[in-house]
């Protein structure tokens, strides 16, 4: 061990002699390791981001949304028509009755309308839903309360306001206990939601600006029709439910249930008037994708490390030749073959590990810059990737160092002394 340390010192002193050359020699490793760290940081960061997003939408959720089917009646001269599409109460009932794995089912109906508070007005969406909406939507109340089963049964004129809507209508005043007007009807405000945190920005804005009213109340007061006036035409839409949110009990059941629900709906919907969103499936896809990315970047990094290793070996071979005489002198003065082997091996090892360390720092810096420069990106340098990079650079050092070191120690001392 003492001998090892001594040879290590000789090796490191050899490097200090040519700092610039040493740096250039290690450049391949620096770049290779830097790439590993940087790319893993970007991939891991993206993965974490996606996971976060999925968690925000509920990893056990399945979201069904009504979708207006492709307009195949464009040729029709009719200026006014009724389009029927979307999910139905019957769909919701059938899903609820068929799948035991579905824990909670939340139907949502959107009605566009204007909400007033005195003179303040906001054109927005009224979301008609059920008392257990919050169980699935992952929203939470800022204050006040959500509507009760009784209010649902009674079709009470109560509403919970999205954070943004409350601010627009009431500024900083607490709206709970006050009332708003939707169309011609007055509703008592019973609660205000927190701002939504999903990474789907449009969805967040919609939710934050919505007024939530019991489904029964909306059915009673608005009927089943939605009237949209467009440029010179009037579309009447009849949509029973715009969204059905399902929460599955066990995570492992999410994908099979989603498939079964899809199959079931297909039987009752002749055209594609709904879409299904399964956050968990997205997660799996994201994982597959990041696996692929890791493979790709891994091979790029492997190639640059290989090139880096060859570069180091090449320089070390040149250095061994250049220092033939020195080797002869050391041997004549009592160095064993293994001393010489160790000296050059340690020199290579220090070179590559130091290069690795610089590469790690560079990679971390690159990841930090990436986060600043690229909008909406997070990067994550894991301890795992640092250990991996360090291990790889040490391995490259040993592999690249063995041959030059053995060549150096295999020299005949007399020949070496006669060199030049």
């Amino acid at each position, binding site marked *: 061990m003492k001998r090892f340390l001594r040879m290590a010192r000789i090796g490191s002193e050899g490097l200090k*002699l040519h700092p610039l050359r040493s740096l250039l020699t290690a450049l391949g490793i620096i770049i290779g390791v830097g790439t590993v760290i940087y790319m893993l940081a970007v991939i891991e960061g993206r993965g974490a981001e996606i996971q976060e997003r999925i968690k925000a939408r509920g990893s056990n959720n399945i979201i069904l949304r009504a979708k207006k089917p492709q307009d195949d009646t464009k040729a029709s001269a009719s200026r006014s028509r009724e389009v029927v599409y979307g999910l139905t109460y019957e769909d919701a009932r059938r899903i609820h009755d068929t799948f035991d794995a579905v824990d909670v089912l939340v139907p949502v109906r959107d009605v566009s309308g204007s909400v007033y508070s005195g003179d303040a007005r906001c054109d927005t969406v009224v979301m008609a839903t059920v008392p257990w909406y919050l169980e699935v939507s992952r929203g939470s109340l800022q204050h006040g309360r959500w509507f009760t089963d009784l209010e649902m049964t009674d079709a009470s004129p109560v509403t919970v306001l999205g954070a943004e809507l409350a601010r627009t209508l009431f500024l900083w005043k607490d709206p709970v206990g006050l009332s708003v007007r939707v169309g011609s009807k007055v509703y008592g405000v019973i609660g205000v939601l927190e701002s939504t945190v999903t990474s789907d920005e449009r969805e967040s804005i919609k939710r934050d600006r919505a007024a939530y009213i019991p489904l029964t109340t909306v059915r009673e007061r608005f009927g089943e029709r939605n009237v949209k006036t467009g440029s010179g035409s009037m579309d009447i839409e009849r949509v029973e439910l715009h969204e059905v949110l399902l929460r599955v009990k066990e995570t492992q059941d999410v994908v099979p249930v989603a498939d079964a629900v899809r199959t079931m709906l297909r039987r009752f919907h002749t055209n594609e008037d709904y879409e299904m969103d399964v956050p968990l499936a997205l997660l799996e896809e994201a994982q597959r994708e990041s696996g692929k990315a890791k493979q790709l970047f891994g091979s790029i990094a492997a190639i640059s490390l290989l090139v880096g290793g060859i570069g180091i070996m090449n320089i070390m071979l040149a250095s061994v030749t250049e220092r033939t005489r020195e080797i002869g*002198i050391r*041997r004549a003065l009592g*160095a*064993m*073959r293994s001393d010489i082997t160790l000296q050059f091996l340690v020199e290579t090892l220090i070179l590559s590990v130091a290069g690795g360390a610089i590469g790690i720092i560079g990679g971390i810096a690159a990841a930090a810059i990436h986060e600043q420069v690229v909008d909406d990106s997070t990067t994550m340098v894991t301890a795992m990737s640092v250990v991996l990079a360090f291990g790889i650079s040490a391995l490259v050092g040993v592999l690249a160092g063995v041959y030059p070191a053995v060549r150096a120690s295999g020299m005949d001392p*007399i020949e070496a*002394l006669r060199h030049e």
Partner: protein
Amino acid sequence: MPAPVLELRGVQRAYSMGDTTVRALDGVDLVIQKGEFVAVMGPSGSGKSTLLNLLGCLDRPDAGQYLLDGQDVATLHDDELSGIRSERLGFIFQSFNLIQSLDVLQNIGLPLVYGGCDPAEAAQRSRALAQRVGLGDRTGHRPMELSGGQQQRVAIARSLSNNPVIILADEPTGNLDTRTGDEIMALLRELHAEGRTIVMVTHEDDIAAKAQRVVTMRDGRVQHDTGIRA
């Protein structure tokens, strides 16, 4: 009768160059006692350096026997030869053979690195040796910054750092002017006076005259041996 330190019996060493073989040593018999100061002379190519390399355990005979302190070198492993060089031998070369990247002190201490000496003690011993050869104020210099004579003094100090019994010098004054050469010879005589065995190759008569005994080589054989002179 003192015991022989170095004993060669019918030693042969040939170099093959393509299809010709050069018999660098062609049956050398030589016995050197402890404490002798021997000069090896002879024309260029007569095998002096080959002989010295053999004595220095850098090489092994093709045939014949080389006994160092009574031990047959042929039976020793490469690492054991390194050990002998590290513990018992000191080398001085014509071209100094200092390591350019190391300073004077580090060059002097180099054999101690391989002798397993404690670094602090090595530094202390090296400094004392630098002083002894008159380079106490140059310890931090690189070999390039020294004159030839000074470099050879560093080499002599280096050869002494492991306190060897035998000093082997291959034309130590060959690259020096007469005056500097004389200074180096004075140093070697001092070492001899301390009781060390010295074998020195030279082709200068006046240098050889300062040794106790002159062995003359020719065509790989010992042609003439003066024996110990007073």
